[in-house]
Each structure stands twice: as C-alpha cells, then as structure tokens.
C-alpha cells in the first residue's frame, strides 16, 4: 500500500543514548507504531491519494543538486576512489597535488599495497604511502606515475556558521551531495577500540580463557564470526584468562587495526582476524539502536577538531573533500558517525602539516624513496 509496508524495520526515535539497558522500551514502541502507520495509511487510502515529492525534487535529488553542478571542477574532479586490487571501493581520496598526492582516511586503508587509486578520468595507479598520521586518521599517498591532476582549492573553515551549506561527493566521487553545518565544531575524545563482546571468566571444564556471553550488533566480533560461548584463548599473540586483560589488549589499539583472535568453540581451537572499531559507537549500537544509519566508520572518534554536517554519505565516502558553495575545500570527511552525523577534519587541522609531508617527500628526489 505505502512505503511503510515495504520497509524492513521502523523505529521510534527516543533512544537511550549511552545506557542501552532501555532498548526494550524502544522495541516496544517499534511494534506499536508500525501498527499506527498501517492504520494511518488506511485512512490516507480512504481519502484521495496524497501527493508525494518525487525523489529528484528532494534535498539531494537531481533537480536540487543541479544548483551545485557548476562546482564539479572543484569537487568531483578533485576526488578519487581508493579501491581494492579487485576493484571493490574502499574509501575516497582528495587530490592535494597535481603530481599524484592524495589524502584519505588512514584507518580504512591499513595496507596501501593492497589498494589502488582510480581518478575521475578513469586512470588507475598504485599507491605509495608517504605519511601516516594516526592522530588525525589521515594518510598521505602518491599515485605512482601520475601527473596533471586537478588539485583542490583550499578555503578557510573558521568562518563557517551553523546552517551554512556544504557540498561533498558520494559513490566514489561520482555524484555531488549537499547538506549543512549541523552542529558546533569541537574536539571528539576517544575511548579506544573494542571488539563488542560481554565476557565472563567462568569457562566450561576449567579451560584457561574468557568466555563470550554477549555480542554487540554489527560489532567487529559479530562481523568476524565470533559467537556466544566461544572461549577466547589468545588475543594478538597473548594468552588471556581475565576479561580485564582482553579489554586492555583491545582498547589500546586503533580502531581499524586488525588483530588475530584464537578461541575455543565446541572443544575445537579456531582463529579469526577481527578488525577493531571505536568503542563509543560499538557501545551505542549494542542492540542495533542506530539501525538505519547506512553504515558507520570503524573509527568515529578521537579527533582533535571536527566540523559536523548532515550530508547523506556512506563510510566509503570518507576521505573526500567538503566544500562551500563557492567550491573552496574547508574540510575532509573523516568519519561517518551515525544516521545524522558526519565528521570532517577542518582544513586548519591538517593542511599545514600535510604540506610539510608533501614538501619533505618531494625533496630529496623521489628516486631515493621509491620502494
């Protein structure tokens, strides 16, 4: 009848932010309100069919986006796609030097040797890592053997005000998207990395290890295939028997890092590789509360300063540029956080440093540095 019935899930939106014990309330509301929506759709049907705004006229529909089409040379053209050697999109890069220098989100590409870059003109190239800065979650790389690229034109992010339009790119830099500065610029503290498990030291048959008694929705542990009642034996090369130690070993690492986990399942020892994520988001989405978020970044916190905007993007769009309506780059998308939030590193937070990395790389001559 309406889009309502075709949707997989609906949710009331008074959520429990950090304390997730309340998710029952939320679920109850889901059930009650899907009924309400059906009910009102019945009445809508009994009246005349009501007009719905066609997708192309919506805020990020084609007709609205035609406003920013003049910005293409300053936005889409200065964006490249980082993909796996098999062509799977990983993240987005911002071109910062005509001679092949690009910046992207470091935690998305722990190993640049296994990735390549594809430019708007469809040229591809291998990537040479120049500098990795965990503090900013940025990596500077150079596309090998590429010249004549359109580099971004930089502006200042300081004068940005709440409600100011911003423009960015989605789908590996193929399409523009717009949104606004949606909240105050600020620092985002970090809480370390997490697996997304609840643990108990009581193990069956006195096995020396830590038993998993709960797994968070869409968490690193769930994605890696860990299950309840698996007994963790070894984390990143260290034998574990206390849940505190598991927490310590995991928490001190960077979100995005991959660790090896050895565990016991039904008396059989197995090993898996787990890609860690920011603890804050794992905790906040324990029961899938932020279910309709379109995917979030593994690292979504621990930034010295961010701009927050409401441009509808995906984790693979991170690393791309954020511009004003004048086409000046004011930030670089650094984390897809939840359904309503994307963080961008303001230009001032990285550009001075990035220029130094490029300068140091250009002199001495590259021949010395090429692997």
């Amino acid at each position, binding site marked *: *009848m309406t*889009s309502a019935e075709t*949707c997989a*899930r*609906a*949710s*009331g*939106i*008074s*959520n*429990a*932010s*950090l304390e997730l014990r*309340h998710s029952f*309330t939320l679920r109850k*509301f889901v059930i*009650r309100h899907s*009924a*309400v*929506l059906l*009910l*009102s759709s019945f*009445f809508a*049907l009994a*009246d*005349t069919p*009501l*007009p*719905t*705004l066609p997708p192309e*006229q*919506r*805020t*990020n529909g084609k*007709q*609205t986006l*035609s*406003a*920013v089409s*003049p910005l293409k040379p300053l936005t889409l053209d200065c964006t490249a796609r980082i993909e796996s050697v098999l062509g799977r999109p990983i993240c987005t890069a911002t071109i910062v030097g005509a001679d092949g220098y690009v910046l992207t989100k470091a935690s998305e590409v722990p190993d640049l040797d296994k990735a390549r870059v594809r430019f708007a003109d469809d040229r591809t190239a291998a990537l040479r890592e120049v500098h990795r800065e965990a503090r900013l979650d940025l990596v500077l790389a150079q596309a090998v053997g590429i010249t004549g690229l359109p580099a971004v034109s930089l502006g200042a992010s300081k004068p940005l*005000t*709440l*409600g*100011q*339009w911003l423009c960015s790119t989605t789908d590996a830099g193929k399409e523009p998207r717009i*949104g606004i500065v*949606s*909240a*105050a610029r600020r620092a985002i503290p970090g809480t370390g990395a997490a697996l997304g498990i609840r643990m108990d030291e009581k193990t069956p048959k006195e096995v020396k290890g830590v038993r998993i008694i709960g797994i968070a929705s869409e968490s690193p542990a769930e994605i890696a295939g860990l299950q309840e009642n698996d007994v963790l034996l070894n984390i990143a090369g260290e034998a574990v028997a206390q849940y505190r130690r598991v927490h310590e070993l995991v928490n001190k690492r960077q979100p995005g890092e991959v660790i090896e986990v050895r565990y016991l399942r039904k008396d059989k020892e197995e090993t898996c590789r787990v890609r860690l994520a920011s603890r804050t988001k794992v905790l*906040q989405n324990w029961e899938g*509360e*932020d279910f*309709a*978020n379109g995917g979030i970044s593994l690292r979504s916190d621990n930034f010295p300063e961010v701009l927050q905007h*409401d441009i*509808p993007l995906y984790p693979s769009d991170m690393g791309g540029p954020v511009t004003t309506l004048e086409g000046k780059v004011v930030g670089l998308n650094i984390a897809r956080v*939840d*359904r*309503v*939030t994307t963080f961008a590193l303001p230009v001032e937070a990285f550009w001075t440093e990035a220029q130094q990395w490029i300068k140091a790389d250009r002199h001495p001559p590259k021949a010395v540095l090429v692997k």
Partner: protein
Amino acid sequence: MQTRPSFRLILISILLAGQVRGEEQRPRAPKAPQTDLATLRRIQTDVQKLLPQVRPALVAIQTGGGTASGVIISADGLLLTAAHVPGDPGKDMRVILEDGSVTTAKSLGLDKTTDAALAQLKQREKPWPFVKLSREVIKAQPGEWCFALGHPGGFDKSRGPVLRVGKIIKQTANSLHTDCVLMGGDSGGPLFNFTGEVIGIHSQIWENRDQNVHVSMAPFLRSWEAMQKSQVIKIWGVGAGGYLGVATVMSDDVELEVADVIDDSPAQKAGVRAGDVILSVNDDAMTDQQQFTATVRSKAAGDTLKIKLRSGGKERELAVKLAQKPQEDSE
C-alpha cells in the same frame, strides 16, 4: 491556544480543500524549476536568521526510558513532545535547556494513535523562551523547505543542538514525512517552517534516510483540550464519523474498489470483501474515494448504511451498521 468546539469538522474540511487545491496544482508539478545557488543561499540566510529566535525553545528531555527532545510553545512553559516519550500522563521528566540548565516537567495528555503529547514545565511563573505552532496545517505541502532541531543521541553541551535542513516529502492526515534525517534522541523535537513556526514533532524513522516521520500539528490542534486535561487518546478519528472498516482504491476501470477490509469491522461482518466495487451508498452513486469517505464520515456510529456492491459480476446490496472505531489492543 483554546480550540473551538467545532474544530474537528473545520479540520476535515481544510484537509479536503487542500486536496482539491493539490489536484489543481498537479499539472504544474513536473515543471519544478532546477534549483540554483541563489535559492540555496536564500534558504541558508532564512534558516540562519530564524535559528537564534527558535533555538532557545528546544529542550532535551530525559525520562526513565531514555533521552528525547521537546519544544516550548508558551511563556508559561507548555511543551510539545512525542507521546512515546512520557508514555503516560503525569510523568515527571528531566528537562535540559540549551544553556545546560536543568528543570522538570510533567506530562499532560497524549494521543497514542498519532504520537502527539503535551507537557508542562513545573516553573510556570518564569517567562520561558517559546515558539509558535503553525495552525495552517495544510500549508506544509510536499516540496516546501523546512528545518529540524533536536538532541540526537541525547544532550551534548559541547555539540549543542543539531540542525537539519530539508524538504517536506509527504503530508498525511496526522503526519509529515521529510528528508530532514532523524535518529534516536530526536523524538519530540520540532520541525519548523520558514516563518519559524512548529509544523511537526519528530516521531519515527524507517530504514531509508528520507523516511523521517513527524507528527503534524493536526492531531495537536484536534485534541488540544483533551490533552490539556491530561487525557489519553487511543481512538483515531473520534468525531470523524462512524467506522466502516474498508480501504478503497480507484480501479483501472476508474471504479471505486474495496482494497482491504479490516478484520472484525462492521464491513467485514456485513460481508464486504476485497475486490468488491462500491456502486452506491444510501442510493447515492459513488464515483470517487473522496465522495465515499465524506459520505461515510457524515454518518455517526450506530447509523445504518445501505451499500450497493458488485462482486464477481453480480450486484448485491448490504446493510451495514456503523460502529465506534475500536481501541488499539496493543497496550
């Protein structure tokens, strides 16, 4: 703020009038102009001009069940929020203002069928910052720009309230759908038009990012007095006439066809089936859905309708006694 007794009827007629106007405008819709940068800049200027006026009226609400938002709509501290936030009348709620100061409110009445609720800040003597609500529900039409405020994820002093700018996608009898993206914690927060009036209260989301549902001002205005008296409304459409229990569509042959029959409704008990074509009601020929709805709604519960149907090529006539719409049993 008092609602006139005959308001429900007025509301229905406004809705119908609006639909007629919508029909007239439809031929022009495909010619919607390409948006230009000047339009976007104008939207930005308007939002930024309104923000300092409307932002102080936004509040964060904390209940035992989680965190949500709300908006103050009178100097003595009357608050609009979503019904699933307090859940019941008489509930104490912790309220946080923009500057971080904390106060308390008590929930008044709520409309559980549409998710509309009223609450009252306990310190009534204080002149609270407030915004007006829009009484012209019908003006919130698809394509209009709007903006949303709220505390997604809960109150965060360093972040402040979160703004979203978007467009109205759809208006239904009790709700607005927009592409202002919402999430947990936004519930009860305000959706504004470009005169800075509240046109919606954030209520629920569906999977896609442009599926964000707000309670429109219609249920607030319709049930204002009941909600002020801390009553709970569990029946949709009291005063909208008797309850028949069928959903209709216009068939390919441009006939009024029964799309669905609600279980245990008077229509089902009388033998109306999906696929039947409705020919007449009380000897008046039925040609469209609007006429049919108006005819049914003009009768009260207890009245009997004579409905002429065609099912499977055969015409038949039924007598259906209209009922009160049943209460939701999910509580």
